[in-house]
């Protein structure tokens, strides 16, 4: 069976690797991204890597009014959709979001509101179809607020709560909702940060996302040891956590 897959934020470092896994199984890919040159490069790569068909759609995903049209088109080109991945995101400069409300709003739009809006439209499609997988990339940053990135973290926490609720709504329809929480991944998003041994490659993360989509799981940490790291981090009492300066 040829899977029909929608990738939102298809130029993301992680999403590209996930798409390569789908291309290798000759899936049909509908790619959405905002930069037309990057989008074209990704589309060509995936065709060479074996994708049976590749459709592209250029859009800024913070333009909500386009969402229905994007989802409709993606769901109709190949008469249905087997999976959708919401991968776009941004790691805002914490100092900047603390001062500039427009930057703050953009960060929340990118990491939370747009993903919710897209999910709602996808939920309608999948519910009607009575099948499908909706995958959303969250982050371990959503598991506990930290000084260095709590705005980003709060959006990732919110999307996790949203996904949990949506999962319950779609359960009767046989639709799966999976939330993937990567730890640190080497992608353009983190290239300005000093790397440490906990960083994994985009390829490893992207494959993890692919496995999460294609297997029966609902919340996935990438790599899985982050589940234990975050369990410890969540359990550290606040007074001590405050001293850790994370």
């Amino acid at each position, binding site marked *: 069976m040829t899977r029909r897959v929608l990738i939102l934020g298809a130029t993301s*470092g992680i999403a590209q690797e996930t798409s390569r896994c789908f291309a290798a199984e000759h899936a049909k890919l509908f790619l959405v991204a905002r930069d037309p*040159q*990057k989008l074209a*490069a*990704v589309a060509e790569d995936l065709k*060479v*890597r074996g994708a049976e068909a590749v459709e592209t759609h250029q859009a800024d995903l913070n333009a909500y009014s386009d969402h229905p049209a994007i989802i409709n088109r993606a769901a109709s080109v190949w008469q249905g959709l087997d999976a959708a991945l919401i991968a776009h995101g941004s790691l805002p400069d914490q100092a900047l979001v603390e001062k500039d409300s427009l930057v703050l709003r953009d960060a929340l739009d990118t990491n939370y509101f747009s993903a919710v809006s897209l999910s709602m439209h996808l939920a309608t499609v999948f519910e009607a179809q009575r099948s499908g997988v909706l995958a959303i990339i969250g982050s371990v940053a959503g598991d506990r607020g930290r000084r260095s990135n709590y705005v980003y973290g709060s959006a990732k926490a919110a999307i996790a709560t949203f996904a949990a609720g949506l999962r319950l709504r779609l359960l009767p329809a046989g639709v799966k909702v999976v939330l993937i929480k990567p730890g640190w991944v080497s992608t*353009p998003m983190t290239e300005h940060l000093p790397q440490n041994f906990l960083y994994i490659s985009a390829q490893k993360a992207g494959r993890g996302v692919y496995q999460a989509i294609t297997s029966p799981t609902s919340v996935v940490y990438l790599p899985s040891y982050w589940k234990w790291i975050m369990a410890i981090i969540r359990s550290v009492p606040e007074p001590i956590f405050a001293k850790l300066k994370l």
Partner: protein
Amino acid sequence: MNSYTSWGRYPRSHPAEVVPLSWISRIPDFNQFSHPVLVYGKGRSYGDTCLNDGGVLLDSSGLDRFIQFDTHTGVLRCESGVTLQSVLRLSLPDWFLPVTPGTQFVTIGGAIANDVHGKNHHRAGSFGCHVRSFELLRSDKGRVFCSPEENKDLFAATIGGLGLTGMILWAEFQLKRASGPWIECEQIRFEKLDTFFELSAASDENYEYTVAWLDCASAGHKLGRGIFIRGNHSSAGPQDSHGPLPLPGFEAPEMLISRPTVRAFNWAYFNSQFRESTRNRVHYEKFFYPLDRVAEWNRLYGQRGFLQYQFVVPYQNREVVAEVLDLIARSREVCTLSVLKVFGSVSSPGLLSFPRPGVTLALDFPYQGQPTLDLCERFDQVMKRNGGVVYPAKDARMSAESFQTYFPQWKELSNFLDPRFESDFWRRVTPTNGNRQ
């Protein structure tokens, strides 16, 4: 975590800045940097051709996309950071690399910039012989399409151009037909160099791949013994293969790299081939990339790193091989690996390409300070007397004078350099090259 060293981890060099590249459409203007720039592929060059002390390194590993692959003609176009490993994973079982070096963790950009060669040089020439076109990004001219027809001088200067003629954005090259991932491989023991040359000459015609491993730790009457390896692609299926590896992959902790252990290892490896000759059907990875099985084996050499000395001499001067082995035997240096091959006459379009007809020998030495450098210097004297040339991709120490003797075309290359590009290697071997210092 990324460290930008070369494969030999000598010399150490510290870029002022590293810029990871992810998109061809988003490459920063080279003129915006206050330091000279250089592209860094996978750092599989042994010496300093991929280093830029105090400068900017542009890390091309994020440019890993394919652009076009014609599965009928085997013409592949891809971004310059694509590795040989990715190409093989895509192209097999129908197509194989036209030329491959002894590691698959090399980028297409790096393969062109050093015009790499492989075990089939006698048949196929170097990698550059199979490049159809590429696009360069230059600080002075912007994007320039290069092929044997268009901008052909810049095309020739870039093949083997040591990364100094601008950045290769993407390249298109011709793969060759394959019949699957299996190689029919034969290994033959030889006791002296003359036998190697006989075997090599007798095999050129019927074997696509030929190379030999030399026991570099033996002296006296054992000097020049080794194992000759030849192979062809096989259309047959897998076969259990328990024979020795085509080349040894050593898995020893750092302190084991000493004269007695290396001697013991060479002895054991040579004698692991009990019969005079063995035949095996092996997977291509085992045949071409035995060393890749130990990730980062270069770290076994410890903090000080190691050197590789690879030269080619005209065939009629092949006694140089024995002379060099003799110099090693009489020195205190430990040669850990030595690989011998006869190059063929297919010439490369590259202006500064290293491969040329003759005999090539590659030698690894743990870096032990001045004495190691002195030994290499003695090799250089032998080269200059015999029309030899040393491979820049493997070099970390040759003098400017030696380089300019080996590659008199370097002056011509100077005309094609991107004014913003420099490397540690180039600064070292052309110190008097105008105001570029």
